């Protein structure tokens, strides 16, 4: 036996994401996504060998290491359970840790899940707990990222309306995704462009919502995939990269950790021309301008030209590289789960199971997540065909 075991995604489930799920406990929320993933795979709890769970800071729900309490709800009693936390990229990292358990042949079938129930507290409280002696952050989360958007605008001379195009596209895509949080039936480009400027250059409609939600996947080996009732999505590459939070010479507009991570994934998957070879991308875009920024960082556009790609319509659902057909983080943001939703939506695309937001004929898709101060990256590339081993 040599090389890695191929990993297939055979079950995907998520909750209908909303601002507050007041009808379920924390356990009930994660359970709903997990059951849907199991049903998709036509498996029961006994078929799961291990559980890998991820979420963002525990302060969001006020439960320290909530996996201890959630073990029962996720059928983990008597099984291994791991809890990943890599800031905003955690949903992606969690899926990769789970995939490695299968790839290393430690387990055959693994349930992985990420969640956030932001309505239990207040994310801004959780994110901005005052630290003594430190100068308070003078702006909210958008204010933290807005200066980097300005730097991007300056660097590329991008016209000011590109951000609105992204938001308008993602919110329309969300209308085709029954699980998306924001369903703005009456969205127009004009509405986005005239929404209040919160952290100039970021407008209200170019920011993500605050959601309760969970996402789960069942990952399995070649034998498990052969028994699966529906076509699997095969993992062809997966990687994480991290760089320090703040350091001399950091390029927060196009962080090297992001481009290195993408390069590693493409290398593993044998991709040399990502724009041509990849059919759909689910990238982590919490503020609309991050679409053109990541298009460059991930190698889909030349440096300085990501905005042209967005402007050309290439990233629309019917474009040549649809980005965030699900509606993306701009339409749904249960923080800890957002990365896993990107990974899962990429898998749905290559399984041909994305429903109304399906990219016709998608064979290869990239799932992307990032977190912290644009420092933690997690990505995977999934495909309809199994990897050649």
């Amino acid at each position, binding site marked *: 036996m040599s090389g890695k075991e191929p990993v297939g995604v055979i079950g995907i489930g998520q909750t209908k994401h909303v601002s507050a799920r007041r009808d379920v406990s924390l356990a009930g929320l994660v359970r709903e996504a997990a059951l849907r993933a199991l049903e998709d795979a036509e498996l029961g709890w006994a078929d799961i060998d291990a559980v890998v769970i991820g979420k963002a800071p525990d302060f969001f729900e006020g*439960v320290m290491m909530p996996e*201890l309490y959630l*073990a029962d709800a996720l059928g983990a*009693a*008597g099984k291994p359970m791991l809890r990943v936390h890599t800031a905003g990229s955690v949903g992606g990292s969690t899926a990769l840790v789970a995939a490695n358990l299968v790839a290393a042949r430690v387990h055959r079938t693994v349930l992985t899940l990420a969640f956030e129930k932001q309505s239990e507290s207040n994310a801004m409280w959780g994110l901005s707990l005052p630290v003594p002696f430190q100068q308070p952050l003078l702006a909210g989360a958008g204010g933290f990222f807005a200066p980097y958007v300005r730097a991007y605008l300056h660097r590329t001379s991008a016209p000011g309306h590109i951000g609105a195009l992204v938001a308008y596209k993602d919110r329309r895509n969300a209308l085709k995704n029954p699980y998306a949080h924001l369903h703005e039936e009456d969205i127009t480009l004009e509405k986005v462009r005239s929404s209040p400027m919160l952290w100039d250059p970021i407008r209200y409609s170019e920011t993500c919502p605050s959601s309760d939600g969970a996402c789960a996947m069942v990952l399995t080996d070649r034998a498990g995939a052969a028994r699966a009732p529906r076509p699997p999505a095969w993992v062809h590459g997966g990687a994480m990269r991290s760089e320090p939070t703040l350091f001399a010479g950091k390029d927060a507009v196009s962080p090297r*950790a992001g481009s290195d991570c993408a390069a590693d994934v493409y290398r593993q998957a044998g991709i040399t021309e990502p724009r041509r070879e990849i059919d759909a991308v689910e990238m982590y875009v919490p503020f609309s301008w991050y679409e053109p920024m990541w298009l460059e960082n991930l190698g889909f556009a030349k440096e300085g030209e990501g905005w042209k790609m967005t402007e050309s319509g290439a990233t629309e659902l019917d474009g040549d590289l649809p980005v965030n057909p699900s509606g993306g983080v701009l339409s749904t943001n249960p923080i800890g789960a957002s990365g896993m939703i990107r990974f899962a939506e990429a898998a749905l695309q290559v399984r041909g199971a994305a429903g109304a937001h399906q990219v016709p004929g998608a064979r290869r898709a990239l799932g992307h997540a990032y977190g912290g101060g644009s420092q933690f990256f997690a990505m995977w590339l999934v495909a309809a065909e199994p990897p050649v081993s």
Partner: protein
Amino acid sequence: MTSRAGHSRAGYREEGRRDVAVVAFAQTAHVRAADSLSEVEMLLPVLREVLDGTGLSAGEIDFTCSGSCDYLAGRPFSFTMALDGVGAWPPISESHVEMDGAWALYEAWVKILTGEAETALVYSYGKSSAGDLPEVLTRQLDPYYVAPLWPDSPSLAALQARALIDAGETDERELAGIAARSRNAAQDNPYAQLAGSPAAGTLLEDDYLAQPLRLHDVPPVTDGAAAVLLAAGDTARRLSRRPAWISGMDHRIDPHGLGVRDLTDSPSTRLAAERAGLFAPGAPPPDVAELHAPFTSQEVVLRKALRLGEDTVVNPSGGPLAANPVMAAGLIRIGEAAARVSRGEARRAVAHATSGPCLQQNLVAVLEADGGEDEGGGQA
């Protein structure tokens, strides 16, 4: 590259699995409160020690994984600043678990098993002194039925101890003996926070802290950090004269509710040990066991679950009763067990880590020296 030597460690390990070993271990001199240091200032020396000791730079490490806890620090994303100590530039392949570092080591071990990494740096740290630890740990409990009552960790451990005494599995004298033995053993451990102990009989004259537990049954509050370097196959042999091979590792979790569990037993520990190959037919008993039993009574539970007898020396480092830096204490058990193997003091060792109230979640790693007894020889 799978293994040259699967059988030379008596074949207790999974066929076809890569050989992975602990090749370096470092820990801080543990203290009650490292209050002059930030977390990264506390962590940095142990990172330097494992890297400099093996002559590797951060850039030569294929994977890095850490374990820590925001609730311990009182700040969200506390691990992001600890990354400053690693020197993560150019960017590194890196992950973090909100768990004891023993589970970070598990993630790193799996990463090496996939073949994607030859070496991995694992670290963890905790400043328990920042908050009121027994109070902080109540936030781990069922948030609907239990956490609102704020039951402190010594009280919960005392419920477990009482159940053991009622079941005739131990008594207060034996528990005092465990405390005395552990802290006396710690006299040989320069990193221990508490070392030396009056005799068991004298300890029993003290008042109860949480009846049936006395102060000696309870771990100290500790600030500390630890780091471990893992390597595969020939890389391990190059980096260490005597690698401590991980012949098996597994972890399991039990249901959360204290009232649904038999507190006198630890099925998850037993199952993890079985899966880690501790009970493999024909395998000799471990020479050493490093058990993450913060409370004396928990050692009784773990000895039973791991089937440890007189042949096994338990917690020669003093264990968590001598220093209990939460989030690092489990990783330190693996490091201590590996260090015994690397120093030639043990041929086979078992390390255990725990998480959650009353031993809810448990990890077991079996470490072995090169060259099985049936073959002799091994590395020069």
